[in-house]
């Protein structure tokens, strides 16, 4: 929750709502990119790496930093937890009330 996880922006899902699809270690999920979008068109973010906190891309980072951060998160077991949380959340949303 507190440590972000690196992901690569691969697609824009809603330019108006500043939502994009990020690839986090092979898991694709929607993230908000308002905090990293700046004034440029959101499409410019495709291919960029970002630190993602609870579904919000908070900081642009380079690919090397992304790889190094992912290594530390894996060592701490946090990467696995974060990815599992993404999957579990999808299941919870799909669960009928």
């Amino acid at each position, binding site marked *: *929750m*507190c*440590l*972000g996880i690196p992901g690569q922006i691969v697609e824009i899902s809603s330019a108006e*709502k500043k939502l994009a699809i990020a690839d986090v270690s092979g898991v694709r*999920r*929607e*993230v*908000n990119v*308002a*905090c990293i*979008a700046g004034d440029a068109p959101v499409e410019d973010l495709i291919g960029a790496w970002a*630190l993602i*906190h*609870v*579904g*919000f891309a*908070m*900081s642009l*980072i380079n690919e090397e*930093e992304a790889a*190094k*951060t992912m*290594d*530390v998160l894996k*060592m*701490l*077991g*946090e990467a696995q*937890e*974060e990815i599992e*949380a*993404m999957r*579990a*959340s*999808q299941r*919870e*949303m799909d*669960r009928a*009330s």
Partner: protein
Amino acid sequence: MKYAEEFRDPKAAKGLLAQIAQVIDELGATKEKPVHIMEICGGHTHAIFRYGLDKLTPEGLEFIHGPGCPVCVLPMSRVDECVELAERPEVIFTTFGDAMRVPGTKKSLLQAKAEGADIRMVYSPLDALELARRNPDREVVFFGLGFETTTPSTALSIQQAASEEMANFSVFCNHITVPPPIKALLDDPHMILDGFVGPGHVSMVIGVEPYRFIARDYGKPIVVAGFEPIDLLQSVLMVLEQMRDGRAEVENQYSRVVQDDGNPVSIAACDDVYEPRPTFEWRGLGEIDSSGLRIREKYVAFDAETKFSIGYGKGAPRFVPEPEGCACGDVMTGRLKPIQCPQFGKGCTPEMPLGALMVSSEGACAAYYQYGGVDLEPAE
């Protein structure tokens, strides 16, 4: 050096450790009279234990593990209120998974869920919003929890809910901020702190300016640090060098991610949505001035405290004492080491936590339990 081979760059690590030992010597610090450095962030606490940095560094250096794990400082009364909300039949209660196992006075959210409350563990407030859209006849409450790394996400989600005029989404806002508890710790006459390793990702949001008072008013060094073991060692060295040189400054070791003025979009969203509460309760630390955030009047429609008349929204918050024998408060302020708590590894384990510091992997006790390498007596 058991862990050194796990470092990305063991040579750099050895070099930094030698430099740290050198400056510790120059400072005249010893095992009996050590330098006390507090790492504020729970992620740093976890990394320090995982990489054994507390053992690799000289005896004259002692890490004090700060109150930087939001789950660990969550008072039991807040957990009780979460359970109360979750047990309302119209409510779908959404929370980060981290909060599920925190003990309340009667039960945790996990137990409430097992008993039938509709509680969904979500990865993001975006998912709570989506649940509200999919369930228009239910009230979706999101448990807003965490420091400045998660406050912007909740703020942006509230703004989004407002723009969609959603009527069935609200936030039980228990967000807290990092600088006020540091000030409270520095004001505590029992606390002996020589310097700080500052949080990386919190600083990515708020920048480094909010820490200025630590150097200016208290004459203590603080270095904002990254999460790799090399980052942490380098930051510790920078703190020690400031001490040796008689400087007290705010330095940024993690400038590859942290801009000095933070993230402007996040800061603007938080200013728009929240205002500081006069005081807020921290588990183990008590009430701390201006340390919690509440939702501003303009977004009151999305404030679960008002909507359901609960928590601080109800008037005076309910204070609940810690469970018998729990020494989380003393551990959090550095008065006790985790293993000095009489319940450590006996009445309190990660499987059956008594105190919150044992719940999360970012809590000092859980980290100590997992990596501390201490010989534990079997549970009674």
